[in-house]
């Protein structure tokens, strides 16, 4: 097979490659010029729709379809917000863009703002981010100084201002509606739909929230055309995906992956396999809210949404975590449920009560006080959350639990029966048991 396509990670990262001059030397800020000079806002949206690009924050929704809801002639302010609240455990690929290709994001946001007739755009960046925050704010200063932001562009009357808005430590603010409520200066409570955010979003005005990586693809789609984008990846998942891989893997990091290639090629060839040559027990493919894929399944399938769906999972947020043989899946689930419990905003009954309940159950199992019905209970609470909450976090916690229970239920039975872990409670990469 030929080398995978490179749409985003297509330059050498150096100490200066994130700067404006280098970005422009690579052809930066030509796409926005092309869009403004040769396309109408609607044509830009149509191009995005034609490209077939799906959201890369986890939900996988068609970006063009989302944009299409915005009525360009409604006389209302429209807002655009980049979701840089990367908080899905295992995920650090948006961080790569913010640190190494901030101008790619800034230019792409101009393209989106032009298409959606947005005067004020925002980047909601998680409050903990250190270098990514410094890089994006420095890049924004450069962009303002160069006249890309804050001034009418390329002879048109289109102007865009952008504010980088820092979160303050809450995973749920990565949920699009929670993000906007946080941007309004309040608790990051997600909202019920209807209305969709594209109808009533930030301060009840039409708002598009897109993931950083999703947006960052726009410059390339405008420059090279939507068909070139569609020619990469698979029919159902066009384009490339940034995958951040970590855990029990020899070469952790951010990689640009072209969906459709064998999963094992990525794990063993590209990323060097598991330390010590140990076996893959399972992999969380796309952030902890996707269901685990066993080592055996990894050997069989391609790394794309469609194949992952056949084993009950998906590309999710691109946060891939490799788990080696000998890891205790009960303790692993404990880490995950503790996280969800900590991050539940507390608004709706199933998640607020369910997360705490699941956490207390898993703590009890790990402490050697589990009872056989606990496994059913975890599944039941997961089912009670699925589709019955204000936002997807309740569902997500359920998927995490159900995925691990489905494929490693025997470990839980063992722990409950024998009051100890099948794998000595181990989480680190040790010898196979």
């Amino acid at each position: 097979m030929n080398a995978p396509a490179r749409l985003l990670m297509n330059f050498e990262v150096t100490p200066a490659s994130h700067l404006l001059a280098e970005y422009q030397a690579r052809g930066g800020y030509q796409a926005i010029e092309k869009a403004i000079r040769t396309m109408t806002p609607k044509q830009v949206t149509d191009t995005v729709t034609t490209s077939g690009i799906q959201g890369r924050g986890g939900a996988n929704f068609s970006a063009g379809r989302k944009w299409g809801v915005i009525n360009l002639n409604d006389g209302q302010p429209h807002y655009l917000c980049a979701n840089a609240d990367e908080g899905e455990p295992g995920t650090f690929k948006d961080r790569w863009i913010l640190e190494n290709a901030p101008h790619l994001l800034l230019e792409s946001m101009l393209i989106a703002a032009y298409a959606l007739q947005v005067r004020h755009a925002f980047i909601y960046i998680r409050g903990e981010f250190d270098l990514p925050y410094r890089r994006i704010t420095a890049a924004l200063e450069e962009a303002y100084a160069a006249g890309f932001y804050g001034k009418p562009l390329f002879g048109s009357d289109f102007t865009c201002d952008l504010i980088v808005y820092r979160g303050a430590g809450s995973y749920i603010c990565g949920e699009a509606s929670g993000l906007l409520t946080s941007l309004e200066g309040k608790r990051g409570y997600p909202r019920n739909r209807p209305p969709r955010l594209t109808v009533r979003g930030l301060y009840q005005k039409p708002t598009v929230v897109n993931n950083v990586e999703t947006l960052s693809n726009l410059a390339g789609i405008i420059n090279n055309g939507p068909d070139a984008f569609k020619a990469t990846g698979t029919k159902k998942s066009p384009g490339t995906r940034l995958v951040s891989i970590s855990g029990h893997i020899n070469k952790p990091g951010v990689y640009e992956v072209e969906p459709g290639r064998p999963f094992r090629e990525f794990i063993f060839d590209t990323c060097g396999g598991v330390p010590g040559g140990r076996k893959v027990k399972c992999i969380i493919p796309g952030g902890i809210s996707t269901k685990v894929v066993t080592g055996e399944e990894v050997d069989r399938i391609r790394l794309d949404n469609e194949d992952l769906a056949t084993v009950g999972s998906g590309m999710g947020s691109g946060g891939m975590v490799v788990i080696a043989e000998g890891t205790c899946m009960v303790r692993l689930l404990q880490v995950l449920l503790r996280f969800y419990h900590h991050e539940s905003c507390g608004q709706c009954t199933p998640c607020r009560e369910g997360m705490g309940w699941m956490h207390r159950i898993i703590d009890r199992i790990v402490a050697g006080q589990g009872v056989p019905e606990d496994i059913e209970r975890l599944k039941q609470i997961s089912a009670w959350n699925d589709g019955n909450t204000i936002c997807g976090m309740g569902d997500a916690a359920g998927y995490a639990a159900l995925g691990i229970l489905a494929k490693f239920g025997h470990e839980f039975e063992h722990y409950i029966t024998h009051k100890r872990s099948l794998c000595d409670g181990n989480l680190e990469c040790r010898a196979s048991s």
Partner: protein
Amino acid sequence: MKHLVAEFDALRARFPEGFSSSMVLPCLRRIQEDRGYVADEDIGDLAAYLGVPRIQIEEVLSFYGQFRRAPVGRCHIEACRNVSCSLLGAERLIDHLSRKLGIRPGETTADGEFSLATAECMASCGTAPMVVVNGKYHESMDAAKVDALIEANRVKAAE
């Protein structure tokens, strides 16, 4: 908070009309940067300055993990214990930190120099395990590096 008002005015001018409420998070962050935490009197002052209900600020302060209403150690260490960090030894690292400093997560040393907290995923999974020290990321940590970090910060205090 008065000495920050000019800064806040400038920030407000960058936001669109009607976005006063949005100023709550950035202003609280700035107040906390300045004082080390948000004091009770800051709440009333900020509510009055922004024209938002006081309860909104109290709600926000208690919702977001980064805001605090009491001081922490001069050197505040947050250690991630989420999935990838745990797979790469975060539990052992946190134990080590805890024993080295003589405090449990959530506590501050008696001399007020160090405080320790656990944190959730910081998006450093590829360079796990990691700690954040006074907001700065320190990645690919191990016991030796953590020891060096603590010593470096102790030395700073002595200066």
